[in-house]
């Protein structure tokens, strides 16, 4: 952050850096434009009583009305970016309530990036700080799943390993296998089965029960489509350990710590996971 080299002197033209900091402070401030020019961030750059003098009036608009055009567009643009990432939240909360949440969020977490893609990354955590959100734990879970979908959507493509990759490995070496998931994949534990709610929204169907239910999901992309795969707690522990780089033997220990699974179940899980193309490589340590 560049410091202002010289303070603005009354009646003199501000330096470019001061003018930009002033205009930005006015744009991101909440409330009316008349209040925006009096915020501490704006007034420390340009005294409020000099603000109108910085901008020429047009035939039809006064200086502050012209500034207000940029303020309105700022809010619209950022709220719209969040609307793209959180359609499920809009559907559950309704448009007005979502937009209000988005405005509060943008005010608390303005963009610091060249891209709007990751603007909403902190929205799930932010929800708990906002008063008046109905069923906030459910809404947070819904937001968390939508956020993961955006991350999976944007991930790089990676190669896909097939079960053939494992076929040539002798059974005595299975314990040393390392299975690396594809990049476009995330694991998440949620307190609600929000994936069922999202799927219902997408079908245009009424949402199922919103009662809490511990849910373990693999969220992944396959052939550019996004999918949720609900799994049991032991299967989740097994997959998570593999995703963190554990050998199969170590991952099985992690699975047994949360209740385990039979050999038949484990074979069935791997059959499904390879079928869904969830691994990019299989290596023998």
């Amino acid at each position, binding site marked *: 952050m560049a410091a202002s080299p010289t303070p603005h002197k009354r009646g003199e*033209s501000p330096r470019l850096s001061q003018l930009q900091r002033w205009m930005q402070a006015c744009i991101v401030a909440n409330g009316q434009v008349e209040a925006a020019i009096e915020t501490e961030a704006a007034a420390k750059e340009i005294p409020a009583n000099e603000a109108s003098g910085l901008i*020429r009036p047009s035939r039809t608009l006064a200086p502050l009305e*012209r500034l207000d055009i*940029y303020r309105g567009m700022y809010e619209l643009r950022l709220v719209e970016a969040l609307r793209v990432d959180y359609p499920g939240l809009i559907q559950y909360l309704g448009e007005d309530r979502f937009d209000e949440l988005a405005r509060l969020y943008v005010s608390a977490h303005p*963009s610091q990036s*060249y*891209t709007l893609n990751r603007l909403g990354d902190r929205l799930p955590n932010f929800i708990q700080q906002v008063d008046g959100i109905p069923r906030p734990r459910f809404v947070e879970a819904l937001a968390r799943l939508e956020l993961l979908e955006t991350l999976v959507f944007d991930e790089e493509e990676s190669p896909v390993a097939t079960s053939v990759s494992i076929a040539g490995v002798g059974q005595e070496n299975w314990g040393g296998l390392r299975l690396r998931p594809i990049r476009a994949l995330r694991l998440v534990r949620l307190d609600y089965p929000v994936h069922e709610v999202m799927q219902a929204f997408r079908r245009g169907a009424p949402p199922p029960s919103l009662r809490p239910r511990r849910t373990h999901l693999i969220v992944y992309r396959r052939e550019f489509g996004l999918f949720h795969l609900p799994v049991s707690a032991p299967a989740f522990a097994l997959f998570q350990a593999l995703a963190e780089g554990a050998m199969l033997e170590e991952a099985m220990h992690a699975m047994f710590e949360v209740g385990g699974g039979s050999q038949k179940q484990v074979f069935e899980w791997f059959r499904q996971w390879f079928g869904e193309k969830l691994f990019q490589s299989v290596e023998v340590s």
Partner: protein
Amino acid sequence: MANRWGLPDLGFGIGLRTVHFPHILSERPNVDWFEILSENFMDTGGRPAHVLDQVAERYPVVMHGVSMSVGSTDPINFTYLKKLKELARRTNARWISDHLCWTGVSGLNTHDLLPMPYTDESLRHVSERVRVISDFLERPIILENPSTYLEFSESTWNEWDFLAELAERSGCGLLLDVNNVYVSSFNHGFDPFQYVESIPADRVVQIHLAGHTNKGTHILDTHSDHVVDEVWQLYRRVYQRMGGIATLLEWDEAIPDFDTVHAEALKARNYRTAPEQEARDGRVTHAA
């Protein structure tokens, strides 16, 4: 008149937009070229990147950005520029453009094209940054005149002279957005024909056309409609003065089907007419 870099007149292009991906991949439409919004493809490796790779194989691609923030007093973001350069390599981009504007300071990004005061200080500041950025990208950058909704009292240059001087000092090329000229002329009360007459023709590499929204008291550059006749007349004058220049139709809100957008872009052909031909046809040319 060709631009000084010999960058080609690519014909009539349109912006590559998500809603048109299926049509483009399945129909392989006969479009001269595509412009991409750079930031939409810089950090994604999924379907957008897959589509872009296929488009770049079949069509000339030009990159147009909104976050270079060439006028900002924050430090230049070299992380951003590095990604921009990599994307240009990947797409074999014919050129890279952005806007004469700033988008944020103090580490924030408003994601808007904010207006510059047209002063000597701004001119020095932007010229130096353009030189640094062009050196990094190893190519001239092409800067677009933005639509603006306010003018600063301290400006001592008009926009067209500022752009001409900036191009001269920094070596940048220009993307002349004819709709933006019209929008700003309405908002600030200048003659749009004087603007296009004053822009150095040999610096202009590309032209933008778009629709806008007239709010009565001001016009917003919304890219949400057909190009209005006043903008077509300006485009005609630009052609008469500068010759054939790669022309792109932008449509970003309430985007209609692909064929409607493409047809709007191809209307530009009707306005690439010489004065003598117009005289033969009995058409009236604006007396600028």
